[in-house]
């Protein structure tokens, strides 16, 4: 479904990603693990053309996205939940979710009530403004907003950063439930291995802008050297 091939990304003179290849099959769920500064966020942004200057191929369901702007990519079915959440502070939670239906384009988005049901925490907050939410609540809203247009592939950038363990568990359950129920593919960048394993089937490890390991979680487990070399602090 989503194919990234030979992707190079630059910030100014800095060459951040070096020929990244990556595939997310239809309704597949894939993790990208890596240390700080390894290029996870740049990869996510590059797929949406939302920041770095990029060279390389990005295809969604066979359509070449190379020339598409961010909002077009969003409408074609890619939905990025950025690591800093970026909730619209002067809109209510409901409006934050409804505004994302712009990305649904001609397709039908999801029903607001059903999405809110998936995040038990959000129900009572629906009328609150974005600026009145805690970090965990904001992350829930950000993910909910991300799935509203029923994207082909949801891109979650380090969703667990700064969240309390109990919230992380709730979030994991909600993410898996949504992806299963609505057949949404997932590309997840994480440092929290528990969360990544709970949510996804495949794992890639990124180091200095290169994919250095790809495989299933079992293969990952069978290679303690990989974990030690690329993820241990």
């Amino acid at each position, binding site marked *: 479904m989503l194919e990234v091939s030979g992707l190079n990304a*630059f910030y*100014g*003179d800095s060459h951040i990603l070096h020929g990244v290849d990556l595939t997310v099959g239809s309704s597949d769920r894939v993790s990208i693990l890596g240390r700080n500064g390894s290029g996870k966020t740049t990869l996510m942004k590059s797929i*949406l053309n*939302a920041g770095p*200057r990029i060279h390389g191929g990005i295809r969604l369901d066979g359509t070449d996205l190379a020339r598409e*702007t*961010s*909002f077009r990519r*969003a*409408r074609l079915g890619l*939905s*990025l939940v*950025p690591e800093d959440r*970026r909730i*619209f*502070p*002067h*809109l209510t939670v409901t*409006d934050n979710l409804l*505004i*994302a239906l*712009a*990305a*649904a*384009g001609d397709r039908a988005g999801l029903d607001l009530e059903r999405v809110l049901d998936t995040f038990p925490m959000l129900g009572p907050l629906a009328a609150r403004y974005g600026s009145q939410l805690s970090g965990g609540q904001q992350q829930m809203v950000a993910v909910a*907003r991300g799935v509203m*247009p029923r994207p082909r592939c949801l891109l979650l950038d380090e969703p667990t950063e700064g969240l309390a363990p109990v919230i992380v568990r709730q979030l994991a359950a909600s993410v898996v439930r949504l992806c299963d129920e609505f057949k949404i593919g997932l590309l997840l960048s994480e440092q929290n291995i528990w969360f990544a394993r709970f949510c996804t089937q495949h794992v890639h490890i990124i180091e200095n802008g290169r994919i250095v390991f790809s495989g299933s979680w079992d293969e990952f487990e069978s290679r303690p050297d990989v974990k030690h070399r690329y993820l241990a602090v």
Partner: protein
Amino acid sequence: MGMQIGFALFNGLTVGMSIFLVAAGITLVFGMLKILNIAHGSFFMIGAYVAYSIIGSHPDSTLQLVFAAILSGFVLAGLGLLLNASVFQRLRNIGEAYSLIATFALLMICNGATKIIWGVNYHSVSAPDALAGAVIYGSFFAPSYSLFIIGLGVLTFLALEIVVHRSSVGKIVRAIAHDSWMANLVGINTSRIYALVVMAAFFCVGMAGGLLLPNQSLTPLLFESYLLQSFMVVIIGGLGNIRGAFIGAIMLGLIEGANFLMLPGIPGILVYVILIGFLLWRPQGLFPQPGADTADRVEGMAETEGVPATMPPKSLSGGIVAAVLVVGVLASMPFWANAGFLFIVGFAMVEAVLALSWNLLFGYAGLTTFGHAAFFALGAYFVGFLLRQDTGIPFLALLSGSLALGALVAFIVGFVAIRRTSGIALGILTLSLGEILRRAISYSPALGSDDGLSGIPRPQIDLGPVLVDLSSERAYFWFLLAACSLVALALWSFTVGPMGRVLIALRQDPVRAEFLGIDVRRYRLLAFVISGAVAALAGALQAPWAQIVTPEAASYLHSTQPMLNTLLGGSGFFWGPIVGSAIFSGISYATRTLAGLSEVVSGGILLVVVLAAPGGVLGLGSRFSRTWRIGALHKRPAVDELARVGKQAVGGP
């Protein structure tokens, strides 16, 4: 008396609503694009001229007036669409200071184009018959046209209020205003919405131009009549807030009414006094929060970020050779240049000194002021007045006096202003002070009122054994050259000295400078005092050269001259303001006989420089050389990229 008060308040309300009609567009554009559009008054004027072209001097009916206004709104909306694609879109990526300059360039182009298309003659348009009368209520009567304006103001406010705060389009607009990056990622075509908002703003201002056409003298100076007041309304209300602008407009109108009752001798001055008080009390405006995140905005503008940092000079010898060469050529000019050209060059030298003093604030201390001409006028009037009185005070003492006067006033102003305000608030505060001075002068008979002081004699300098007579043009030119060179040299040695280095440091990062133990406020005040003193000296030097001083010396248009010169030449370079002054004077000399065209050309050049080379003319040169050295720099959006490289290059000590 009660009648009179009622009438003044009613008039004030009319004025307030007129201002709101104009200011609505400024608020929309700022709230969305974060661009303070200085050219807005000019677009208002163009709207008025377009409507005038449609209906002529005597509209038959109210309906015809409204129809012309709407048509004019559409014409302006089209213009807005064009400008959005060619100018505003690019301005979103460069610093605030540059968007101010770019919109000022638009102002010049619009005003010039207006003169070319519609001529400089005065037109007046009468209100249609239905609106010419008055509605009478017992002993109180209200002109129908005023009621019409008030009604339209309220209507416009309600319409905008509903669209921005209640409708789904309004939610999208507010989402983009806050975070356009994220809005794009949720699938909103932000560029299209930007274009729509700009068109809406231009539609509003075009319509306002048509509706306010009656009872207005239609000349190419119309752009000024609501410009400053619209800005005040927008500042009082909190930038980008429609509700705030509405309340601000009513307040402003009522203050105008009170001014009429209390100070009929000096119209319009109370507004500025109250605005200054307001800025010192609440620099962020009445409603800093909802809609647009203006609170962060005002804070963020405290430093002139985004602008390439001032470079420490690199090669000394090259600079010396260039300086000696320039001074040599200038010194030879009285032998070969004609009188008119010589006169312009003399002015350019004074303007260069004024621009150098302004850049001490902008490029070094990180303060943007819009009222620098006030100091200039202070010095010019001080020397002009005393020379005319034939007091016998030696000329050099007069010059020192102007220096001291400028320093003293700058100290008083700076002491209060720098403590309380920064960014745009500081800019508007200084602008208001300049306007107060200009109005005070133009209503003082002792200072020649609007006509200014003319026939200022050129002095003699008594150096004991030698008596230097400066009364001839040639002699005073040489004196001017010597004086300006000396001032420039003194400023240069100040900026390369230890104080200059501290200023550069706190300009780049005031917070870190503070942590390093630098008293940021004290250094800024010091820069403010020096800058004010030098500006006053520039005025003092110019008075005997022009032999006339008018209140225009203190006007905000004159205040923008040093800004333009500095940015044209390159604010990141000590010599930038001089280069800019030279180029500007050259352009205005070359186009001096063509009414209107000169403004279009100067404005056009300025716009191109800002959009293509935000580092100014000097910045262009040094960037090319740097790009050359770095080599393989992929394809890139030039502006931010090069600015970043620029920062890296100066990053080290």
